């Protein structure tokens, strides 16, 4: 596995974009509806899904981890890091699995990812708070995930169509 210069640059740009998006979404705090520290909409998932499709799972994972670590570094709280990383990794895992099914569209993959993202954050909350009662928030978060997942799917489908001619995933860069 080797990252070409082009791919590396693309990964870096996408990671920066994801970081920007996760900062942007802090302007729309879900915490108003769900009073848990660190729970987020998951807008940055747009980048993850996009990367997953045009670059592949390893690259998407690298972008995700970079985004989470840098985001955690900027916010300076370990809790935020745990939340975003656990949420992100859950989403990643589920999306990699779902994407392998040729029958699902971008929508199905991103909705599944968003749901997994929120489930992962609840898991993080259970771990950091040591209290399983927070699982009671999961239904609300899953409802939110349906909406954000669809939105993410919509945006990514637009992106994929718009960038199809660029051949970002040309064979020479793929494994």
């Amino acid at each position, binding site marked *: 596995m080797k990252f070409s210069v082009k791919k590396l640059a693309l990964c870096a740009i996408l990671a920066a974009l994801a970081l920007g998006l996760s900062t942007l979404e802090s302007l729309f705090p879900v915490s108003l509806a769900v009073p848990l520290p660190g729970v987020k909409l998951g807008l940055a998932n747009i980048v993850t899904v996009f990367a997953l499709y045009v670059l592949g799972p390893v690259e998407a994972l690298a972008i995700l981890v970079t985004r989470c670590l840098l985001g955690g570094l900027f916010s300076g709280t370990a809790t935020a890091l745990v939340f975003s990383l656990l949420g992100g990794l859950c989403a990643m895992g589920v999306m990699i699995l779902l994407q*392998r099914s*040729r029958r*699902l*569209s*971008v929508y199905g993959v991103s909705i599944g990812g968003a*749901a997994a993202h929120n489930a992962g954050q609840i898991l993080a909350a259970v771990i950091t708070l040591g209290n399983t009662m927070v699982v*009671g928030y999961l239904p609300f978060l*899953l409802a939110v995930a349906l909406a954000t997942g669809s939105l993410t799917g919509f945006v990514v489908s637009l992106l994929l169509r718009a960038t199809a001619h660029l051949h970002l995933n040309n064979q020479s860069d793929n494994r």
Partner: protein
Amino acid sequence: MRSNSSPAKTRPTPWDALVVAAVVLLGALTALLFYGPKAHADAPLTCVVSVGGQVADAAPLASFSGEHTYSHNGYTLTVFVHDGQVEVLHSDCPGQDCVRSGAISRAGQSLVCLPAQVVIHLEGAVDGPDVIVG
């Protein structure tokens, strides 16, 4: 693994509905678990009795019914547990504060006998207050 060799599906397929259904199902299940009819049935309370700083008894309130006696510092308390309540029935301590405190039945409440250093505390229930003043 050529995961990206075939063009990505950018329009919703009927199979996507399966994912949505799975998410809805998961949400409904947890909702039922947490907000279902039984969720707010009396959460089980644990009655913890400590004598002189040591836990002497810790038992679910429901299975702790009847009279229990505790002796410490030369005083003896008779504690009566019935119908989800705990009260100090009798104490030979001078102040009688513990007897006067009446019955407790909610999480977080406690009965304290200072001379005998007996503390009866009800633990459990998630909705109880964090601290009681008075």
